[in-house]
């Protein structure tokens, strides 16, 4: 209750009546198009320069604390706590840090050399130890969204140097303080953060807890676990592709300024408003839901709640998944051997991701570990039996069946051959024309001697000659049709 008197005045209006009149006056709807025209006007407006440094006894915030340019607004997430699932790094008896995930902790120069000479395969996980160094936050012009890994003024970049460096210093001048910013020296990299691994809140908590007279630009020693050759590099423009491939993307901030951090749980925001999502599960619930699917040697690196419609901002534009875009899912980064479920044709990678549906608590999909989904440009069909027990690998996507199905009418029957690159296909009932298909995650085939399609649980769901009169989608780029049960 505020300081309103509540008493009527001689005009007959008490505070309640005045408030009601104000509410009525202001109840008119926002004019159509005002939002759009306002955004357009802002886009055309120049922006004032930055004001940073010492002001009124309080340090301004450095770049990494107030950085921008994340992959999407739905990825605005906050650190809400740490899971005591499994320790990752911690001080050893001799003052060193004990590695986890079976990874060698490299220095910055060692990491860059390993990437350069091919010692790190593809997007395998790697660990690096160095110093997170603060930069000033630049004042950027208004910029339309750009591919996640492209280097722009608003890109969220985390500078890690091999040696401790302070790049931003302040000197007293007549009008207050003057700032000076140096370039980093020696081996360094600009890491990119993946959802669930934002360092800002952690740095903020360190700075907020410290002495306000100590510069927040002091370097912080850290160990990052991450990978090169992120799948989203394919979205970068041609002139930035190589730089995007060489970007070190953080899967886990494992250790920072004396604190063991991972695995962390993050909650993302709604796509349209940024409002915090309200998932049903919590981090421990997600870990429990995944427990039976993971390999015993797996370790969870991070957990993040996002909306289904935003998953392509994490796993790549070509990785759309059928379903309600507003649904909440959990994106879980895992280090260690490939999971036991779903039984995909995993490659040789040492890490990947799992998706858990918040509403059902079920695994919804998985990727990484060298698996190449059939909707990827780098997928190459192969009929070689790649699974134990004479099972044949099918061209599958990252997602288990069960999402909303767009519905594509078909009139076809199943056909297959162990010598055909696609293994299984559909044959049009009237024309006998062939239609190549992709399958849900975990699907595979066997020949007894005719083809049988088995789902992610090993149950036969289609046999040679079975009629199929409905599919879930069609990819005009590949000419492939995506099938899901009940195939009608």
């Amino acid at each position: 209750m505020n300081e309103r008197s509540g008493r009527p005045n001689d005009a007959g209006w008490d505070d309640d009546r005045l408030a009601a009149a104000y509410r009525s006056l202001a109840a008119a709807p926002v004019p159509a198009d005002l939002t759009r025209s306002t955004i357009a006007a802002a886009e055309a407006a120049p922006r004032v320069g930055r004001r940073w440094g010492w002001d009124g006894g309080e340090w301004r915030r450095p770049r990494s604390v107030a950085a921008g340019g994340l992959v999407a607004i739905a990825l605005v997430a906050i650190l809400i706590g740490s899971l005591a699932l499994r320790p990752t790094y911690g001080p050893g008896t001799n003052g060193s840090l004990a590695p986890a995930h079976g990874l060698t902790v490299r220095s910055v120069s060692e990491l860059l050399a390993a990437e350069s000479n091919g010692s790190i395969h593809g997007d395998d996980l790697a660990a690096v130890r160095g110093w997170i160094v603060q930069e000033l936050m630049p004042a950027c012009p208004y910029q339309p969204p750009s591919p996640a890994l492209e280097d722009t003024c608003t890109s969220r970049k985390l500078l890690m140097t091999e040696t401790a460096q302070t790049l931003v210093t302040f000197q007293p001048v007549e009008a207050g303080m003057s700032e000076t910013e140096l370039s980093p020296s020696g081996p360094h990299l600009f890491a990119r953060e993946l959802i669930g691994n934002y360092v800002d809140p952690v740095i903020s908590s360190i700075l907020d807890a410290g002495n306000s007279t100590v510069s927040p630009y002091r370097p912080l020693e850290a160990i990052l676990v991450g990978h090169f050759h992120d799948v989203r590099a394919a979205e970068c423009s041609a002139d930035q592709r190589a730089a995007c491939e060489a970007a070190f993307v953080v899967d886990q901030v494992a250790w920072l300024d004396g604190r063991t951090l991972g695995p962390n749980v993050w909650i993302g925001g709604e796509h349209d408003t940024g409002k915090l999502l309200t998932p049903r599960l919590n981090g421990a619930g997600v870990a429990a839901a995944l427990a039976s699917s993971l390999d015993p040697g797996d370790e969870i690196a991070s957990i993040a709640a996002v909306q289904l419609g935003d998953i392509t901002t994490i796993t790549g534009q070509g990785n759309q998944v059928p379903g309600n875009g507003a649904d909440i899912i959990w994106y879980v980064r895992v280090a260690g051997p490939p999971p036991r479920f779903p039984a995909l044709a995993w490659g040789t990678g040492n890490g990947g991701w799992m998706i858990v549906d918040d509403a059902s608590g079920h695994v919804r999909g998985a990727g990484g570990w060298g698996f190449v989904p059939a909707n990827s440009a780098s997928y190459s069909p192969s009929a070689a039996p790649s699974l134990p027990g004479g099972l044949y690998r099918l061209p599958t996507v990252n997602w288990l069946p069960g999402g909303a199905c767009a519905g594509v009418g078909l009139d076809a029957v199943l056909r297959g051959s162990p010598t055909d690159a696609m293994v299984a296909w559909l044959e049009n009932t009237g024309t006998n024309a062939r239609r190549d298909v992709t399958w849900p995650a975990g699907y595979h085939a066997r020949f007894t001697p005719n083809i049988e399609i088995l789902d992610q649980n090993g149950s036969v769901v289609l046999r040679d000659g079975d009629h199929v009169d409905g599919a879930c989608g069609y990819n005009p780029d590949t000419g492939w049709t995506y099938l899901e049960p009940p195939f009608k």
Partner: protein
Amino acid sequence: MANGALAARSLVDLARSGDAVAFESLVRSRMDATYRLTLAILGDGADAADATQETFVAAWQQLPSLRDLDRFDAWLQRVAVNACRMTLRARGRRRVREIPMTQLGGAEESALGAAPARPDAETLRSTLRHLSLDQRAVLALHHLEGRPVAEVAEILGIPVGTAKSRLFKARSELDKALREERR
């Protein structure tokens, strides 16, 4: 700090550093409230739309200088009040104004001599023209937004004592205008 507040702070963080998507999200989430405030101060839909647009353009330009991210909403309201001030000045130089249909209707009825009892909102809209911009702002922030005097003072950048006296004066002027309207 509550999780929702942290999320909002992150959004402001992103927009401050130039992130277009974050800023658009801020515009969409604050559009209704900002238009409501400017309409309550200006009493005219077209002016309120102008002021609302000016508010967000100015916010975009000045965001890099925002110090306390947790005070973004209060800061935005201050920007809105300033935008209303500029709009009122511009209005004084404008020859043609859009007249709301509701006012036209009231004028027609008055011409017939019916002298109907107008809704309080219309009465309030009419009496606002007798008040200064500062008085309108303090009334809207206090009675529409429900802001305590201390917060009103912070938003307007004035001492609490000044806000109290300005609120008292504004209410007195409004009461006087309301009495005039009843005659």
